[in-house]
C-alpha cells in the first residue's frame, strides 16, 4: 500500500488538483458520452416510430414529417 492515510491519498503529494482534475474530467466525459449514446438510441427509435405513424396517415403526412426530421 502506497498511502499513510486516506487524506494522504486524496492530497496526492500536493498534486491533488492536477491528478483529480485529470481523472474527474475523464470520468465526466465518459459518463456524458454514455448518456448521449443512450439518449440517441431512444430519440432515434421514437422518431422512426413517429415517422411510421405519419406515413400510415398518408403521403402528405409523410412529406410534412420528413421536412420536420431533416
Amino acid at each position: 500500500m502506497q498511502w499513510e492515510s486516506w487524506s494522504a491519498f486524496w492530497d496526492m503529494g500536493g498534486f491533488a488538483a492536477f491528478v483529480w482534475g485529470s481523472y474527474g474530467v475523464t470520468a465526466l466525459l465518459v459518463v456524458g458520452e454514455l448518456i448521449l449514446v443512450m439518449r440517441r438510441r431512444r430519440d432515434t427509435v421514437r422518431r422512426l416510430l413517429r415517422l411510421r405513424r405519419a406515413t400510415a396517415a398518408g403521403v402528405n403526412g409523410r412529406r410534412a414529417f420528413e421536412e420536420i426530421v431533416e
Partner: protein
Amino acid sequence: MIKDMDKPERSKSLLRFAAPQMFYPLAGRLAPWFAAAAVIFVGIGIWLGFFVAPTDAQQGEVYRVIYIHVAAAWMSMFVYLLMAFWSAVGLVMNTRLSFIMAQALAPTGAMFCFVALWTGALWGKPTWGAYWVWDARLTSQLLLLFLYLGFMALTRAIEDPRRADKAGAIIALVGAINVPIIYFSVKWWNTLHQGASVSLNKAPSMATTMLVGMLVMAIAAWAYTIAITLWRVRSLILERERHTEWVAAELNALEGKV
C-alpha cells in the same frame, strides 16, 4: 490457404455480418460484454495505478496522470487509423456499413483526443511549468482533435448520406497522415514532450507495476471504445435503414418499450 478453402461456410458466416441487418443484432449482443470488461479493467487499472505502483522518484504523485493520459493518447490515434481503415474499405468495396462504422467511431476518438490534451495540460503544468507549449507532439495532437471535429461536422452537414460518407472518408484518409507524425514527433523533432514510454526494442523506462497498470488501462480504453461504438452504430444503422422491412419489424418489437 487450403485450410481456408476447406471451410467456405465459416468465411461466409463472418462476411454476412457486413450486412447492417446482421450486424445490428450482433452489436447489441456484444456491447454489454465489452462494457463489463471495460469496468473490470478500469477497476484493476486504478487499483494498480494508485495502490500498487510506487511514487515516481522524479515527479512524485503527479505522474499518476499517466494511467489515463497514455491510454487516451494511444486510443485517440488508433481510433483515427480505424476510421481511415473503414473509410478505405467503404470506398473500395462500396459497403455501407464501413462508412457507418467510421462515423460511429469518430465521437469516441474525439473524446479520447480531448482527454489526452486535457490530462497532458494538467500534467505539463507541474512538470514543465506550462499547461501548453507549441511543440511538435502537442501541436500534432491538437491537429488530430480538429480532424475529428472536422470529420464529424462534415459528415453531419451533408444531407445526402452517400456524399457525406465519401466526403468523410476523404478527410479520414488524408488526416491519417497526421497519426504517424504524432507518434514519431518525439523522435523527429526536439520536443519538450518525453519519448515513447513503451517500445519494442528497449527495456521499459519505468517500474513494472507502472507499466502493467498503464497497459491494463489501455485495454480498458479498448473495451470501452468497442462497447460505446457498437451502441452508437445501432442508432446509425436504424436511421440509415429506416425504409427496410427488417427495421419495420425491429420497430414493431420496440413499440411501447422506448
